[in-house]
C-alpha cells in the first residue's frame, strides 16, 4: 500500500532524473527536515510555476515515471527547502515516485480538489509543502494489497486496479480532507483555482503556484516569507475573511496545510493533513489576544452531512439512518486511546425520507429471511457469493453459508449475482424485510392509544383538558391502523374515572373508583375498545369531557394508581399510553414530594439526586410497561414543580418522549400542544419493536444512549418507536489489533407496522479500519460526535454535578485537540495557533453551546429543575440534525424581507452569528432553536412594522408574554407568517411556538434570548472568543 514510503530510499539513487530547468525553484522539501523551509524560495517568481504545473499532470502513469528517460521532475515546487542544487537528482527522483503514487487516487476522487482554496486567485507565497505520499491511502492503509484486490472485484464501486500502486487508492478518503491531498500531490503545480480538477486533467495548468502554504492567509499574497512569521509564532491578525466566508478561519477550508513539514518525506507516518488553524495571538496567554471573533468558524449553513462517505461507499445506508462519529475505525486499542472523543454511532432507524427514496420492501416468501447461520446477520450488499452462487460469505463473521434453493442465482463473470439489480437487499444499504411467522410471538398487535388525563383543578383551569379533548377528537380519523385501532380513556384526580365505551351504548358511562390502595377494574371489557366500532361513543365522551369536569375543584392527583389501572387495561395488548399531568402526583403509590427548591444542595455531591427519579415506583412501572409493549409519552404542564425527573423515567425506559409545556395557558400555548399531540398520534409508529446492532469482528457496541429498555446485553426493547427518535451507542475494540480492513455495521429493527405487518428494517454500513490517527480526525463527523457527547453529558449529570459534566466535555475537547496538535505541531511550529482538523472545526463551538444548553447550564438559578430535566430527556432522543439546530440555533434578520419582500425567503434569509453584536436595534430578528421561535423587536424598529405585525402599538408597553402572534390584514404580517411557516416546514417534528420580545424588556429578553446567544459572555460562562483561548491554552499545556 504505501510502498512509496518504503521504496523511496532504494529508488532514489536509481532514478535518473534530470534536474529540471526549474530546478532552482524546485526545492525538494522532502529531505529537508525543517518544515519551515526557506522561504527564500518563496520569493520564487511565479513564472516558473507554469512549467511545473504542466509536469505533474502529464505523467499520471506509472510507466512514465519509471521510464529511465528523465521525465521532467514532477514538482512540487517546494519552495521551502533551500535548494541545494547538488541534491537535486536524488531528491527529484524520490519525489517522483511519490508523486506518481499519489496520483493514483486522484481519479477516484475527482471532485475533491474542487473545493480548492478560495483564495485561489492569489498568487500566494509558494507552497511549502513537502510531498507526502500517505494521504491517498488513508482508508485502507494496512492490508496486504492482494486482499484489497479481491475486495475490489467483489464490489462494483471500486475502480479497477490500474497497477499495484493503485491498490492503495481503492478508497479515497471521502472527506473534505482531501483538499489536503490535492494540494499535496501536485505540489506547486496545482492551480489554485477552485475549479480545478486538474488532477485528472492532462492539460498543463499554467498557473501561479498555488498557495498551499498554510499561513497563506494572514500573509498577503505578496508576502515573501509567511513562514517565518509562523515560526515566530507571531501571527498578524488575519485579514478580513475572504468573501466566501463567514468562516472566518484564516484559512478555512482553503488552508490546508499540506504538510509543510518535509520531514515526513518518505515515512509512513507523515500526516499530511490539512488542518485548520486559528491564530490566537503572538503571546499565548497574553491579554490582548489576536483572535478575531468574526473569523471563528460557525455552522451557519446548518449540518453538512458527509456526502463523501456516500460516494465512497455507495452501498452504505443513507447518512440519515446511521452515522459514525468517525468514519474510520482505529486498528488498535492504543490508537483508540489516543482518540479522546467518543467512538460510536448515532442511529435513527425510522428517519423520515423524502419522497422517492422510500426504503424498499423485500418479501422472501417461503425461503425465509436469508441470514448468517452464526451471527444472524441479514443478507446485505456487502456479502459475497461464491461457489457459483451456491454459497455466500457473511461480511460480519466471514462464515460461509448455503444459499437456499429458492434464492439461488448464478453469478456473472465478475462474481456478482445476475439478479443483483432486481434485489434491493443486494444493492441498497437500507431495506425492509417482511418477517415470517418465526418473528412473531403473537399476531401483530393493533395500534392502541390510551389516554390518562389529569382532570384536577389546575388542568381544567389552564384549559388543558379542553384542548386535549378537542385535539384527540380531531385526530380520530387519522389514527393509524384503521380499522383495528383501539382506544381508551381514564381520567383521574383523587379518584380514578373509568369510561365504558361499549359500542352498543349511546353515551359513555363513567365508573369511579376511589380505592387507591387496591386497584381493580370495574369492567373486564370495554375500557379499551375498537375505535371504528365505538366511534360514536368516543366522540360523545370527548365532547362531554371538558364540561364534565369544568367545576372540578379537586387539587389532588393520583397518578400512581392511575398508571397501575392503565397498565391493567393495556397489558394484554400493549400500545401507547399518553399521560397528561398538570400537578405533582400527590396520592397513592408514586406520590412525589417537592424537592429541588433547596439552594444549598447545588454544588454538593448530592446535587445529581435531584435529576434522578426519587421514587423507584416509576422505574419499576416503566419496566412493567416495557415488558408488556407499552410506550409512555408524558405531557407535563405545570408552572410549579412536577418532578419531571421522576415522571420522565416512564418515557425513558419505554421508548417514549417527554413533552414539557411549562406554565401552560390555553390562549398562548394551545397551538403548540395541538400540533405536538396531533403529530404524536398520527405519525407513523413502529410497534412492539426490538432493535439490535451487529458489527464485525473485533468491535463491539458497549453502551447505548437514548430512550429504550435494554433487554439483553445488546437488544433494545422499544414498545413504540417513530421517526422522531434517534439512538446513540459507543463502540469498543475487543482485540488489541484489528485484522480486517473494513468493519461492517448492521442495524436491524424488528417491528409491527400500524397496518399489522411485521417487518424488519435493516441498515448496513461499512467503515474502513485505519492505522493513522490523522485519518480518524479527517473522517470525524462533528454532528455524530456532539450528539453522542451531549448524551454522555446528560447521563453524567444524573450521577454527578453539573459542573463535572461540563468539565468532562471540555476535557474531552481539549484532549482531542491536544492530541491533534501533537500530530502536527512539531513539524509545523505553529506556535501561536490553535489547530484542529477541518472536520471538527465546529466542535469547540458546539461543546461550548452544549455547556450552555438548558440541560447543563449554570446552577440553581439558571434554569428550573423541571426545564433542565425535560431538556435532558429531549436531548437524549434528538436526531443529529435537530440536535445541531438546538445547539446552534438560527438567528435571522427579517425586517428587510418584510419591507422589501423578495419572494424567495430561503435565499435571502441568512443565518447570523449568535451574539448580541448581530442584533441591530433598528431591525427585527427571528431566533429558531427548533423548539420555539423568538421574535426580537429592535428598539428603533419602525413603528409601522411593529403595528403591522402585532396589530397594536408598542408605546403602551403591553405585556408581550401573553401575546399570541396572529396574522393581521396587512402585508408585513402576512409576510412574517409566511416566513414563519416556511421555517416550521423545515422541521415538522416539533411546533415552534412564536414568542415576541422587545429589546430592553427585562427580564424576558434576558431569559428568552440573551441567555441563548451562546457566543456571548453571560454570568459564569465564557464567550466564544474566550472559550477558544481557553481551549487553546489548555491544549497547549502539556
Amino acid at each position: 500500500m504505501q510502498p512509496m514510503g518504503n521504496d523511496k530510499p532504494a529508488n532514489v539513487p536509481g532514478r535518473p532524473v534530470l534536474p529540471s530547468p526549474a530546478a532552482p525553484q524546485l526545492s525538494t522539501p522532502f529531505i529537508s527536515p525543517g518544515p519551515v523551509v526557506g522561504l527564500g524560495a518563496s520569493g520564487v517568481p511565479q513564472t516558473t510555476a507554469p512549467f511545473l504545473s504542466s509536469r505533474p499532470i502529464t505523467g499520471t502513469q506509472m510507466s512514465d515515471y519509471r521510464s529511465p528517460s528523465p521525465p521532467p521532475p514532477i514538482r512540487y515546487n517546494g519552495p521551502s527547502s533551500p535548494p541545494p542544487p547538488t541534491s537535486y537528482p536524488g531528491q527529484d527522483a524520490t519525489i517522483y515516485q511519490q508523486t506518481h503514487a499519489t496520483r493514483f487516487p486522484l481519479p477516484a476522487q475527482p471532485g475533491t480538489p474542487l473545493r480548492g482554496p478560495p483564495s485561489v486567485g492569489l498568487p500566494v507565497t509558494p507552497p511549502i509543502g513537502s510531498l507526502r505520499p500517505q494521504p491517498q491511502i488513508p482508508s485502507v492503509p494496512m492490508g496486504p494489497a492482494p486482499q484489497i484486490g479481491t475486495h475490489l472485484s467483489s464490489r462494483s464501486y471500486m475502480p479497477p486496479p490500474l497497477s499495484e500502486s493503485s491498490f492503495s487508492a481503492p478508497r479515497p478518503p471521502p472527506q473534505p480532507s482531501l483538499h489536503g491531498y490535492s494540494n499535496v500531490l501536485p505540489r506547486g503545480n496545482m492551480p489554485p483555482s477552485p475549479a480545478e480538477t486538474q488532477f485528472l486533467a492532462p492539460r498543463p495548468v499554467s498557473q501561479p503556484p498555488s498557495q498551499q502554504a498554510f499561513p497563506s492567509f494572514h500573509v498577503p499574497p505578496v508576502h515573501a516569507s509567511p513562514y517565518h512569521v509562523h515560526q515566530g509564532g507571531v501571527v498578524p491578525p488575519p485579514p478580513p475573511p475572504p468573501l466566501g466566508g463567514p468562516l472566518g478561519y484564516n484559512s478555512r477550508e482553503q488552508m490546508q496545510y499540506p504538510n509543510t513539514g518535509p520531514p515526513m518525506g518518505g515515512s509512513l507516518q507523515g500526516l499530511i493533513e490539512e488542518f485548520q488553524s486559528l491564530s490566537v495571538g503572538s503571546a499565548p496567554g497574553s491579554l490582548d489576544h489576536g483572535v478575531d471573533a468574526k473569523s471563528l468558524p460557525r455552522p451557519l449553513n446548518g449540518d453538512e452531512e458527509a456526502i463523501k462517505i456516500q460516494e465512497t461507499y455507495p452501498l452504505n445506508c443513507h447518512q440519515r439512518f446511521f452515522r459514525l462519529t468517525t468514519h474510520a475505525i482505529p486498528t488498535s486499542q492504543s490508537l483508540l486511546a489516543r482518540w479522546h472523543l467518543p467512538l460510536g454511532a448515532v442511529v435513527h432507524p425510522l428517519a423520515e425520507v423524502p419522497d422517492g427514496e422510500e426504503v424498499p420492501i423485500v418479501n422472501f416468501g417461503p425461503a425465509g429471511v436469508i441470514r448468517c447461520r452464526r451471527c444472524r446477520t441479514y443478507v446485505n450488499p456487502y456479502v459475497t457469493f461464491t461457489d457459483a452462487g451456491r454459497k455466500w460469505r457473511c461480511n460480519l463473521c466471514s462464515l460461509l453459508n448455503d444459499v437456499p434453493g429458492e434464492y439461488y442465482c448464478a453469478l456473472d463473470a465478475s462474481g456478482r449475482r445476475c439478479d443483483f439489480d432486481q434485489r434491493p437487499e443486494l444493492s441498497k444499504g437500507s431495506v425492509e424485510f417482511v418477517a415470517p411467522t418465526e418473528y412473531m410471538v403473537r399476531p401483530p398487535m393493533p395500534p392502541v392509544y390510551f389516554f390518562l388525563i389529569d382532570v384536577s383543578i389546575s388542568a381544567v383551569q389552564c384549559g388543558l383538558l379542553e384542548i386535549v379533548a378537542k385535539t384527540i377528537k380531531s385526530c380520530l380519523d387519522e389514527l393509524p391502523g384503521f380499522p383495528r385501532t383501539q382506544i381508551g380513556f381514564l381520567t383521574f384526580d383523587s379518584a380514578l374515572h373509568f369510561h365504558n365505551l361499549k359500542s352498543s351504548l349511546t353515551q359513555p358511562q363513567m365508573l369511579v373508583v376511589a380505592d387507591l390502595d387496591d386497584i381493580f377494574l370495574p369492567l373486564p371489557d370495554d375500557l379499551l375498545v375498537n375505535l371504528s366500532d365505538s366511534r360514536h361513543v368516543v366522540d360523545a365522551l370527548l365532547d362531554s369531557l371538558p364540561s364534565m369536569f369544568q367545576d372540578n375543584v379537586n387539587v389532588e392527583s393520583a397518578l400512581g394508581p392511575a398508571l397501575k389501572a392503565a397498565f391493567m387495561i393495556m397489558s394484554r395488548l400493549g400500545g401507547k399510553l399518553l399521560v397528561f399531568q398538570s400537578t405533582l402526583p400527590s396520592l397513592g403509590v408514586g406520590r412525589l414530594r417537592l424537592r429541588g427548591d433547596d439552594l444549598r444542595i447545588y454544588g454538593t455531591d448530592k446535587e445529581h439526586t435531584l435529576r434522578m427519579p426519587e421514587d423507584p415506583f416509576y422505574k419499576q412501572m416503566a419496566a412493567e410497561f416495557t415488558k408488556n409493549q407499552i410506550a409512555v409519552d408524558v405531557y407535563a404542564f405545570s408552572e410549579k414543580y412536577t418532578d419531571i425527573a421522576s415522571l420522565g423515567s416512564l418515557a425513558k425506559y419505554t421508548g417514549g418522549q417527554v413533552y414539557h409545556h411549562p406554565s401552560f395557558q390555553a390562549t398562548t400555548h394551545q397551538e403548540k400542544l395541538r400540533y405536538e399531540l396531533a403529530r404524536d398520534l398520527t405519525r407513523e409508529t413502529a410497534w412492539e419493536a426490538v432493535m439490535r446492532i451487529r458489527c464485525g469482528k473485533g468491535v463491539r457496541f458497549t453502551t447505548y444512549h437514548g430512550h429504550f429498555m435494554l433487554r439483553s446485553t445488546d437488544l433494545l426493547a422499544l414498545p413504540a418507536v417513530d421517526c422522531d427518535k434517534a439512538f446513540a451507542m459507543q463502540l469498543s475494540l475487543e482485540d488489541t489489533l484489528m485484522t480486517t480492513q473494513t468493519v461492517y455495521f448492521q442495524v436491524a429493527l424488528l417491528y409491527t407496522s400500524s397496518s399489522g405487518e411485521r417487518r424488519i428494517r435493516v441498515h448496513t454500513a461499512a467503515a474502513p479500519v485505519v492505522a493513522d490517527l490523522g485519518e480518524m480526525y479527517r473522517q470525524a463527523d462533528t454532528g455524530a460526535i456532539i450528539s453522542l457527547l451531549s448524551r454522555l453529558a446528560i447521563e453524567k449529570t444524573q450521577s454527578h454535578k453539573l459542573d463535572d459534566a461540563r468539565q468532562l466535555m471540555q476535557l474531552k475537547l481539549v484532549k482531542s485537540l491536544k492530541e491533534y496538535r501533537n500530530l502536527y505541531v512539531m513539524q509545523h511550529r505553529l506556535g501561536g495557533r490553535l489547530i484542529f482538523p477541518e472536520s471538527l472545526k465546529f466542535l469547540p463551538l458546539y461543546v461550548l453551546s452544549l455547556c450552555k444548553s438548558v440541560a447543563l447550564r449554570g446552577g440553581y438559578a439558571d434554569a428550573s429543575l423541571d426545564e433542565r430535566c425535560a431538556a435532558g430527556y429531549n436531548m437524549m432522543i434528538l436526531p443529529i440534525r435537530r440536535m445541531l439546530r438546538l445547539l446552534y440555533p438560527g438567528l435571522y434578520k427579517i425586517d428587510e424581507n418584510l419591507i422589501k419582500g423578495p419572494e424567495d425567503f430561503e435565499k435571502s434569509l441568512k443565518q447570523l452569528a449568535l451574539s448580541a453584536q448581530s442584533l441591530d436595534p433598528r431591525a427585527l430578528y427571528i431566533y429558531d432553536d427548533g423548539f420555539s421561535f423568538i421574535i426580537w423587536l429592535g428598539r428603533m424598529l419602525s413603528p409601522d412594522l411593529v403595528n403591522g405585525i402585532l396589530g397594536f402599538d408598542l408605546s403602551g408597553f403591553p405585556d408581550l408574554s401573553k401575546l399570541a402572534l396572529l396574522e393581521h390584514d396587512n402585508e408585513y404580517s402576512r409576510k412574517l407568517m409566511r416566513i414563519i411557516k416556511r421555517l416550521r416546514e423545515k422541521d415538522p417534528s416539533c411546533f415552534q411556538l412564536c414568542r415576541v420580545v422587545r429589546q430592553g424588556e427585562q427580564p424576558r429578553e434576558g431569559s428568552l434570548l440573551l441567555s441563548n446567544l451562546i457566543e456571548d459572555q453571560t454570568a459564569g460562562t465564557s464567550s466564544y472568543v474566550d472559550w477558544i483561548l481557553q481551549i487553546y491554552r489548555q491544549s497547549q499545556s502539556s
Partner: protein
Amino acid sequence: MVKLTMVARVTDGLPLAEGLDDGRDQKDIEFYKQQAKLLFKNLSRGQNEASRMSIETGPYFFHYIIEGHVCYLTMCDRSYPKKLAFQYLEDLKNEFERVNGNQIETAARPYAFIKFDTFIQKTKKLYSDTRSQRNLAKLNDELYEVHQIMTRNVQEVLGVGEKLDQVSELSSRLTSESRIYADKARDLNRQALIRKWAPVAVVLGVVMLLFWVKKKIW
C-alpha cells in the same frame, strides 16, 4: 366459551388471522397455541383429514373446519356445545370468504388478513353466552347436524406427525453419522499407510543422507 380462534391456510400452514387478545386470563394458553400450530403443520403436510373434526386436549376441545384450503380453528371448553362451536366457525368462514376469498391463495406474509380479527372479536361475543336466546335457537336448529363429526385425541393426531418427524430425524442422523464414519475410515486408511511406509522412508532417507555426507566429505 371460545378461548382461541385461528385461521390458517392449509396448503402451507401460513397463519392468516387470529382473534385479538385471546385467552387473556389463561396461563397455559401458549401451550395450546403451540398445539394448534402443530395441528396446522400436520394439516399442511397433506394428511387427508376430515374437513370437520373435534380434537380433545386437556380440559378443552379444538374444533376445526377446512373449507377452500383454509382451516378455521377454535378452542372451547369441554362443556361448550359442539353445535354452537361449529356454527361459530361457519359464521367466520362465510365472512372470511366473502371479504378475502380471492386473495387467500396469493397471501404472502403471515397474518395477511389480521384485520379480520375485529370480526372474530365481534362474533365471539355473540357466542360467548350459551344461554342467550339467539344461541338457544341455534342449538335447537335441527338442520345443522354435528353428530357425525369425528372426535379424536390430540395425542393421536399430533402423534402421527411426531412419528414422521422422528423417522426423518433418524434418517438425517443416519446420514450425518455415516458421513462421519466415512471421514474416519479415510483417516484411518491414511494412518495405516503412513505406518506401513514410514520406516522404509526413514531408512531410505538415512541412506541418502549418508551418501550425501559422504560426497561432501570426499
